[in-house]
């Protein structure tokens, strides 16, 4: 499959930018305020710089492995065991995040629009979209992402510009918010907001060249850094600290604030489009990669037969948290604090081992010769 399908830089950048930025529509802006107070936007910039630096290291280490994904490289590093360990870690990570995100999307949908509908009913529709996306394959998802990414961006910027009467730049002071320690030391773990970069290590075979790999990585981190920083800044400008700590789905609440004259108000429908589209793209792309990683890890010929079992698993796990707060805390306390280990540290470790193995085998080969 990977050898036949190739997609361009725009498609891959769009996909990754959507995957990294979609958290804007959930609790991301609030999460940053929780971590850094009025310095939330500084924290995002700091995390983006760190993510860029770590990606520079990873792309340097990636250079001998053009056209290979992280699971292939895991195989080179540790044989079958290496491949299975690497694949399984990614698999667990993807199942966890897609389950939690599915629950969050469904709960938020229920809170803002579908008050009476049972949560399982709402989730089933999200699941239907995810299953359809996974069945159609990565090419359909990526190409749809390339079409819809600008729609999502336009919707987001329209909402944030629409609340300009509420901007008050004095709200960003004190500029260091909850302090240097919280931003620059404890804030290190917030590079996890760019954890979707790990998908790049899975789509490397579709990008073919190292150049495409690098451009996609830097551009997607850069674009999402702009979106994430802007959302954090506007959240503080509009909602004020500490009241901003209370807001569920700050971007939705921003959309509710848009009130330009008596004619241009109630633009939540704009939010709904951007939010639902980015949600479906995010969930179906990540869900596709669950099946894809499983196939690669266990060297299966087809990925489609595992779609329904995984859909059932994800659906079941997503309904395990007893309430929306538990689901959100699972994402904030565990995923957003520790997933950088899987997204950034694991690839570096795997790449270092693989390079060492290759170097050793070359040296061994030369000695034998």
């Amino acid at each position, binding site marked *: 499959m990977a050898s036949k399908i190739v997609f361009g830089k725009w498609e891959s950048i769009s996909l990754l930018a959507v995957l990294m930025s979609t958290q804007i529509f959930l609790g991301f802006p609030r999460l940053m305020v929780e971590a850094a107070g009025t310095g939330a936007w500084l924290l995002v910039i700091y995390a983006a710089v760190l993510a860029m630096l770590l990606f520079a290291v990873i792309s340097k280490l990636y250079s001998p492995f053009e056209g290979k994904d992280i699971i292939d490289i895991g195989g080179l590093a540790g044989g079958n065991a290496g491949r299975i360990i690497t694949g399984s870690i990614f698999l667990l990570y993807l199942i966890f995040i897609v389950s939690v995100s599915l629950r969050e999307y469904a709960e938020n949908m229920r809170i803002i629009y579908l008050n009476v509908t049972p949560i399982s009913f*709402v989730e089933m529709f999200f699941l239907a979209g995810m299953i359809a996306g996974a069945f159609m394959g990565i090419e*359909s998802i990526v190409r*749809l992402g390339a079409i819809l990414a600008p729609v999502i961006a336009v919707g987001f910027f329209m909402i944030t510009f629409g609340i300009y009467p509420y901007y008050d730049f004095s709200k960003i002071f004190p500029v260091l*918010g909850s302090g240097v320690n919280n931003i620059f030391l404890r804030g290190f773990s917030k590079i996890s907001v760019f954890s979707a970069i790990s998908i790049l290590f899975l789509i490397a075979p579709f990008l073919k060249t190292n150049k495409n790999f690098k451009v996609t990585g830097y551009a997607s981190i850069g674009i999402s850094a702009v979106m994430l920083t802007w959302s954090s800044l506007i959240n503080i400008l509009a909602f004020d600290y500490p009241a901003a700590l209370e807001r569920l789905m700050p971007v939705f609440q921003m959309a509710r604030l848009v009130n330009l004259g008596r004619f241009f108000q109630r633009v939540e429908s704009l939010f709904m489009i951007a939010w639902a589209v980015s949600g*479906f793209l995010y969930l179906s792309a990540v869900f596709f990669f669950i099946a894809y990683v499983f196939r690669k890890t266990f060297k299966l010929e087809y990925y489609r037969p595992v779609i329904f079992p995984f859909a059932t698993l994800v659906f079941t796990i997503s309904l395990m948290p007893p309430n929306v707060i538990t689901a959100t805390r699972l994402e904030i306390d565990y995923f957003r604090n520790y997933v950088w280990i899987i997204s950034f540290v694991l690839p570096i470790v795997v790449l270092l081992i693989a390079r060492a193995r290759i170097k050793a085998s070359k040296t061994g080969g030369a000695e034998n010769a």
Partner: protein
Amino acid sequence: MPKKVCMLLVIFILCCMLPGCYDRQEVDDFAYVIAIGLDKGKINILRLTLQLAKPTVIGSGGGGEGGGGGGGSDGSEATTTIVVETPSIFSGLNMANNSLSKKLNLAHAKVMVFSKELAQEGIERYINAIPRTREIRPNISIAVSTSSAEDYIKAVQPHLEINPAKYYEMNYQTFKYTGLSINNDFHNFYSQMKSTYQSATAVLAGVNKFNSAEDFSLQSSTYDEKGRPYPLEGDFKAGDMPRESKLKAEIMGLAVFNGSRMVGELDGHETTMHLMVTGEYGHGFITIPDPIRKDYTVVLEVKRSRNPVCSVDISGERPRISVKVILEADIQTIQSGIEYEKPENMKILEKAYEDFLRESIIKYLKRTTEEFKSDICGFGKIAKAKFLTWDEWERYDWLNRYKDAEFNVEVDFKIRRTGLIVSTVPVTLSKEKEAP
């Protein structure tokens, strides 16, 4: 491949839309609340008043159901009210729903009115429910009624508007051209209530107490305490304006909060000063005694020229706040007929306005520190920028220090235009000729 992409797009769109079928609701199934009133209850914690729109009346042009545009032309019949006593807002909705054929919907509520009595006790326990619900919009105006909220809402029977919601929308925006009131929406009010650098304000509303022009009195006017011989246009609070009209509801002045508790109220004139200091003043007529002939008045249409320039010095024990208000004006009325259009006279008039406004602003600011102990102008925003971290800012404890603040007020006032008259020619009187 494009076929697959299109199919996936269609599936996504269908998946977005179809879940809505489960809790589908028709627009016609709802009764739309346009105003919510909260008073202290007689037999329960709260008395909840809901003003509901009658869409059929509004749609037919105000003259009665199915009139097809005929009938009357006002909105007095376009609403109905329900009053329930309840422990909380939402339990009250539940009780009210029981008597209606349609489900109450708050998505079109324009104003939430608290009675003064309730506001003085603190409204946090009631208002905390609002940001949780998606139905009530953050742009809903917050008002405090000098009479009961129930009376105020029942008194809103607009005669110039068919749509009562439009009445609220437009009435609460009049401050832009009168300067005698404010409009604080729930979003701002809630943030200010929880803020560490600014206290909240709300619109002061009330029911006019005069039934005829013969009943007019100045008992409740604030002109006397200001040492004026007669009241100016802003020397009243809501409910006290000498005004006779079928529409009894009115707004004038603002309610001052400290946290969630109302601690005082300002009259229309002080509200103008508040708007000038906060930079929200648009334009409006301001009357002062004629600087040369004190028994006459001068009226200028005063406009904000530029945003006020404020600074806060926190180096000393007490915060020192400097305010420079920059205004311009057009001459509207010179009762005395003195030629203030002349440059040398214009300077006298400008100076008189500068002194009048400076004195009024200082008096107003002193009330905020000494009487209310509430930074309703938000000077704390400026002070906050002098700190690097939130902990340092919280330790400074601005809201407690504000009561000791000292002010330095400057008013820059320039008359720009003189209306359609460039020079006042004195009135000619006929001289009585002596009989030969």
